[in-house]
């Protein structure tokens, strides 16, 4: 292939911690800073050589606008290196990498620090518009009378917060919560509660078994003003059982639903940083990459069935790269919901789906069990939305190296009706 490749030199990530636990006090800028700092320390790269810093973040912090720039400066990257933040919902971490790829192809830089960061613990609560208007009125009030009047206009209901996280996980176009879109797939593709729970149990089991492997990706965090160390993910449950999963109540459709907190991805804090560069630059600097990116695709689909995004994206990636699914030695499909991943697997191997939705005669392919999400997925590890895309690249490349395989494919469904797919390979 003649297109130049973007190589991934190395990557690190923070531990992934469930919302409200170990990392709850650290904002996305702090998580990102720690990851980038650890990456630079680990690789020993002179930060002045970096051409740009690109970070994905979904719940961008109000007190650290363009969080990528904040991360870059605080991680010790010199001020002459520019930085920007990208947002493609759950694929924001992928977007950061593909942006670097495009920039490299366009001749706009060779060395990039990319990644994603998310503190779902710190997504703020918001005031309703009506209350905001009253606050504005109060701020403008000059006389005591005006001020008193403005204050008296408040009603208890004005102080009921809008929960930012909930808003972020609701599609503003179709009006459905992400979980509700998963319920649709469960119904339409016959993904039973049992199948979903079994899938979730497998995710935990695999993540627990892979604990040492996953720890290789992790830079420990020393939360300030404690003497503690957080050095492992706290999502995977060793004692997870089918019985416990079966007991959980459906969250999104309480009466007839099948999607529970147990078979959905966990809400999590974490950040990932990757050092990527052109193949030529890596050779020049004498750095050995862990892998390379060969192509990618984003594709749109029905927002109400956003969970099928990977099917569209993988098909589109095949069209662009010519690489077929059966070439993948490792596949990661982000486990937003067990129902959604299972539905994707069904659609990928369905000729009917291919003909109806993908404008092709035959199905895309089958993914063997021992290739898909072999070290567990977001159901066990958690899904810090802006960071996950970058984690899948890191985790899959490490696994590809362990297996001495050639190619890896990572894919995510994206809220709003999109899919992302990236092809990676080992040298």
């Amino acid at each position, binding site marked *: 292939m003649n297109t130049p490749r973007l190589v991934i030199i190395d990557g690190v990530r923070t531990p992934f911690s469930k919302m409200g636990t170990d990392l709850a006090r650290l904002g996305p800028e702090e998580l990102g*800073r720690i990851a980038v*700092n*650890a990456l*630079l*320390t*680990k*690789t*020993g790269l*002179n930060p002045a050589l970096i051409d740009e810093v690109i970070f994905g973040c979904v719940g961008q912090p109000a007190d650290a606008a363009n969080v990528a720039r904040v991360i870059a400066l*605080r*991680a*010790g990257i010199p001020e002459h290196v520019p930085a920007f933040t990208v947002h493609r919902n759950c694929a924001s971490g992928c977007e950061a990498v593909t942006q670097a790829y495009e920039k490299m192809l366009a001749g706009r830089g060779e060395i990039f620090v990319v990644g994603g960061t998310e503190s779902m613990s710190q997504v703020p609560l918001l005031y309703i518009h009506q209350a905001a208007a009253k606050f504005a009125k109060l701020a403008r009030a000059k006389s005591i009378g005006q001020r008193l009047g403005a204050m008296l206009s408040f009603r208890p209901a004005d102080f009921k917060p809008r929960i930012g996280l909930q808003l972020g996980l609701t599609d503003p176009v179709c009006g459905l919560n992400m979980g509700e879109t998963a319920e649709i797939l469960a119904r339409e593709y016959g993904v039973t509660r049992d199948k979903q729970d079994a899938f979730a149990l497998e995710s935990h089991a695999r993540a627990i078994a892979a604990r040492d492997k996953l720890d290789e990706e992790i830079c*420990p965090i*020393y939360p*300030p*003003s*404690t*003497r*503690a*160390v957080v*050095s492992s993910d706290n999502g995977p449950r060793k004692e997870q059982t089918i019985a416990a999963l079966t007991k959980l109540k459906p969250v999104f459709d309480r009466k007839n639903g099948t999607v529970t907190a147990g078979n959905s991805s966990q809400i999590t804090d974490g950040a990932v940083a990757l050092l990527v560069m052109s193949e030529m630059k890596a050779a020049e600097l004498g750095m050995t990459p862990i892998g390379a990116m060969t192509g990618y695709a984003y594709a749109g689909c029905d927002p109400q069935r956003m969970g099928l995004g990977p099917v569209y994206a993988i098909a589109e990636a095949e069209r662009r790269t010519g690489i077929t699914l059966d070439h993948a030695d490792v596949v990661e499909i982000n486990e937003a919901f067990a129902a959604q991943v299972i539905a994707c697997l069904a659609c990928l191997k369905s000729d009917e789906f291919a003909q109806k939705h993908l404008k092709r005669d035959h199905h895309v392919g089958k993914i063997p069990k021992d290739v898909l999400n072999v070290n567990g997925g977001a159901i066990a590890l958690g899904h810090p939305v802006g960071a996950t895309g970058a984690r899948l690249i890191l985790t899959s490349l490490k696994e590809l190296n362990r297996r001495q395989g050639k190619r890896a494919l990572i894919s995510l469904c994206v809220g709003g009706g999109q899919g992302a797919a990236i092809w990676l390979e080992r040298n």
Partner: protein
Amino acid sequence: MIVPRTESVTEVIRKVQDMPELIRRHVTDDQICVLTFDRPDSAANIFDKATLVDLNNHINFILCNSSLKGVVITSAKKSIFVAGADLTQLSKAKTPDELRDMIELGQSVFNRLAMINIPSVAAIHGACVGGGYEVCLACDYRIASPDKVTKIGLPETQLGIVPAWGGSTRLPRLIGLPKALDIILGGKTLAAKPALKCGMIDDIAPREYLVEKACQLILKRGAKLRVRPTKFMHRLAKVGPVLNFIAKKVQKQVLQKTRGHYPAITKALEVVTQGLTKSIDASLVLERDAILELGSTEACRNLIRIFFLQERAKKLSGVAADVAAESKVGPVKRITVVGAGIMGGGIAQWASSRDISVILRDINHDAIAKGLSGIAKIYDAGVKRHALTRVEARAGMDRISPSAVDVPLHSADVIVEAAVEKMDLKKKLFARLDELAGPNTILASNTSALSISEIATATKHPERVIGIHFFNPVHRMQLVEVVVGRQTAPEVVRRAVKFVQQIGKLPVVVRDAPGFLVNRILMPYLIEAGHLFENGARVEDVDECMLEFGMPMGPLRLIDEVGVDVSNHVAADLASKFSDRMHCPDVLSKMLADQLLGKKSGKGFYVHTKKGREPVVNPRIDKYHSGTSCAKLTRDELQTRMVLLMINESARCLEGGIVDEAADVDFGMIMGTGFAPFLGGPLRFADNVGLPQVVAEMKRLADEEPRFTPCSLLQTLAGTGQTFYKS
């Protein structure tokens, strides 16, 4: 803007005489005379005789020009307004008359400035201390920039003198007696914000607008600037009984703190309080007489010497001039600290606060977590003290990259190892660091006891191995020993010295020998204290006599602070190397066996209770007496013994070429141990006592206890009538 300048006669004379222009004058369109201090070829402005004369000439010009509406005094320097009087000139004044002339000249020029009948405003940016602030006090109004370099105050008492160009007179009249005493007696310099709060300045404005703002102020407020209503509280403090009450109270505090060792502070109290009840002129006479009296004291001379030694350390190159000129390596940007314990953490914290990126390496996460939390505590305390802002503290923390695994260290300019004090471990470490480091990386050890030359043998590049020995607590102790091993390259010495200076510490270059300089001299002293105690001397007597001598802390208390375990280890180690004269007292190991570790365990020679409370002597400590031979010694005799041993070891250091000069020994001891600064250090003190007397005293003691035998350098000097310091 070009403004035609009117040349006065004096100016013409100056040009004829080819004197450099020290103060530039410029008259604005609005008829405001701006005087800009701008000493040619110097980064600093100082008040020497020529500058005072120049200022006087400008005042003549102002008095001759009735069209002028006001005067603004400012500086053109980046970081200095006026750094006070020229200490070289002051200290070199041969006769009291010379000093008197200088004082009177300054007083009269500043007085004339104060009497000009148009408003005068000082526009301050940079260090504005001593005479520099006194000239501002003679102005009607003071505006300062909020920049970090702006420091305002009267540090004279720290040099053993009093502010005598009107500072002791005008400051209490401006800000009231209690606050003025706080500044003058403490020899304090303040940042702009606290200076504004206490009234030392009247306003803050950005550096770029200072002069403009001063001019506007003169145009707007005019003569009103000249009048300053006295506050009720200021007047109250002048009332006899109130004044006496304040004076007595402060005097008591001062005596408690200084034990009468710092006559300048007592004198300043006297001048300020008495001067306040008198006229300005009479008060100025008090100032003058006080400084003349103090200027002739040994304490004052010694304090000024230390000032110069500090300045010398800031500029030191540590090697011969040709080596210093040879290479140009930029400032240190990245270091690695190996070991996240108290010392390693302290070094990482300090370097990171000085804009340096630090990799903090230790073997496991818990050690790093502990180290980082210690560093955060130092930063938090700094924020509480207003030494730095929260943002600066966070930026400092951000510069520290922890790692519990090997990472590339090739970009580190300096690696400072601060791991456990075990030779085999250090050798292994250095062999590994030698591989990880880049070709230009300096490999430094913070060891306080082990041989640098021996550590260096573990590497392939012994020439880049050096000792950079910080003292605990790193963020408070200014002294750093730069230890030169047998094979250390001069270039590496130079870079290490530069690094120490870059991070605002004061280097002293020492040769590699057990204990280096400071610990080598301190240990015989601590050992002797232990020995005296063991043989019956009371803890109170041993410590009190050294406090009387002028040490900041008694030796037994110091052992508690350092930790009985650490003291015992260091003392035993050094004693094993100098067994002819040092023997580690058994009392320390006995205390260790009983878990009396000093401050960290709550009990040692003292019982350490809560933070901030003075520890009391451990009531059960008497059982550790094992003899009675020293029980009857007076405090004077105790003091003599301990001091003599320090002098002797100091002389040995000089004799053995650990340092090049007597001044290095004295500087090291004062900065490293707080050795009575007003005595000028152990060797200066010995010179002043008289070496023959020192030797005689030692010989007398040596009859019974051979460790008091004076070293041959002492004997030779005493025998030939020489001293440690020439002239």
